[in-house]
């Protein structure tokens, strides 16, 4: 951060034929301002703006930079098959988390797990902006997981599964939150917008993505990082 250097106040000297005491007073003011300014560092406004732009927080750019090189490879490596991950969670959420997931070291955030889903759409909600497909993964015609297909995606599951990003490295919650949102925007722009939206029931689905520890009787809320619908 730049130190808070204000612009120097301009000193106006009006009139020439002033009586001595006034000239002395003005001389004192000028001298005092010069002394006060001696401690200042002048920074060109243009330089300041350039520097601010270079260091400005741009979450979309940050996500775009790490998406292909780090995020997708990490998820691919960390993921288990969805039924296996769910079976592990049923036994022990912590043990499943250590193997297939991640959470912040402190605080009370739930585990976020990484999984690969391979199944069939049994229900679809595409009228809501928070559209989703419910997917059956074990051919019993019942939904096992709810996959969000955008454009509105809830939560920050993708960010929360990554062990190489950390809230403590961000200035505050606002930037951490914007960063989380940028993952959803990125996947929406690069993957979900291209998916079909009509007659989805009965279609095959594959997806790699993340979901937080399911609560109560809700279906796991899965946010995809890669996804195909078809067949």
């Amino acid at each position, binding site marked *: 951060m730049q130190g808070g250097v204000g612009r120097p106040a301009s000193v106006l000297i009006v009139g020439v034929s002033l009586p001595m005491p006034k000239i002395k007073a003005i001389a004192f003011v000028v001298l005092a301002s010069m002394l006060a300014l001696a401690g200042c560092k002048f920074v060109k406004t243009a330089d300041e703006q350039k520097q601010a732009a270079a260091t400005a927080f741009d979450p979309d750019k940050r996500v775009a930079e790490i998406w292909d090189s780090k995020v997708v490879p990490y998820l691919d490596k960390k993921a288990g098959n969805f039924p296996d991950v769910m079976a592990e969670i049923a036994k022990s959420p912590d043990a499943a988390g250590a193997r297939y997931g991640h959470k*912040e*070291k*402190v*605080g*009370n*955030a*739930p585990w976020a797990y990484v999984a690969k889903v391979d199944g069939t759409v049994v229900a679809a909600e595409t009228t*809501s*902006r*928070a559209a989703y497909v419910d997917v059956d993964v074990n051919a019993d015609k019942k939904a096992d997981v709810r996959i969000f297909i955008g*454009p*509105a995606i*809830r*939560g*920050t599951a993708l960010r929360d599964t990554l062990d190489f990003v*950390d*809230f*403590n490295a961000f*200035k*505050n*919650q*606002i930037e*951490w*939150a*914007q960063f*989380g*949102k940028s993952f959803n925007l990125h996947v929406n722009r690069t993957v979900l917008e291209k998916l079909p939206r009509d007659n989805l029931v009965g279609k095959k689905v594959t997806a790699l993505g993340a979901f937080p520890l399911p609560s109560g009787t809700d279906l796991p809320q899965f946010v995809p990082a890669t996804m195909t619908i078809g067949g």
Partner: protein
Amino acid sequence: MNMTRRLTIAGFAAIMAASVAMPAFAADLIAIITPSHDNPFFKAEAVGAEAKAKELGYDTLVIVHDDDASKQSQLIDTAIGRGAKAIILDNAGADASVAAVQKAKDAGIPAFLIDREINAAGVAVAQIVSNNYQGAQLGGQEFVKLMGEKGNFVELTGKESDTNAGIRSKGYHDVMDDYPDMKMVAQQSANWSQTEAYSKMETILQANPNIKGVIAGNDTMAMGAIAALQAAGKKDVIVVGFDGSNDVRDSIKSGGIKATVLQPAYAQSQMAVEQADAFIKSKKKPAEEKQLMDCVLITADNAGKLETFALSK
């Protein structure tokens, strides 16, 4: 007259004697500094911290800064002067508080922040804050659902100097702005205040009589809004708050406010005291300075389990 005076003098002498004698056997002191207890949220924080500190054998100094950064600075001086071993602080502004916390650190007194962040790392030992974004998304999602994904609404935001005001608004909008048929007709700050929310809501209603919902950055503003709406005979307007206060719980139970988001204030301040205790006794710092606590959506379904910012199982 004479008798009373003598008693007064005797009493005064006794107090003097007691206060002089006190340091000889006084326990270590923990200072607990929060915004005004007028808001039950801050009161719950202070009560939770005080209870845990006493349980662990500390004396406490419970004081309020009224969201005034210069008053906060004086209170930090007081804590330093009283030789506090730790300060539990819900601060008076993300930028303005950095210097005050640094001052305590320079005097060798560790600060454990709760509820609100400061815009600096490495100055406080811990910053235990609610995951306001996650909470606001829960509130925003419920609001959108109650609104049927469409309609005119008003947003009342909190105090601008507080990071939480911005993050909650952002969390709400991250959800709401994905719905093009949701139309925000007014957005104003009521500075977390119930009375201010009431008067702002009255004014907003005059210009926008046909609103379907109000989403507020905290519960006291939600209470102010619903009072103004009810006074105007608008009983069907959907109101959603944030904090999880008993007032809003009761309003939800009686069909007034529709939902709020619980911040675990009581648990948070107790956790801060436990970390302060570990630091005082063994210089042990928490694994991370910044610690997020997830929030919980409160609706008519679970309002019955809510008591003083804690949800029973």
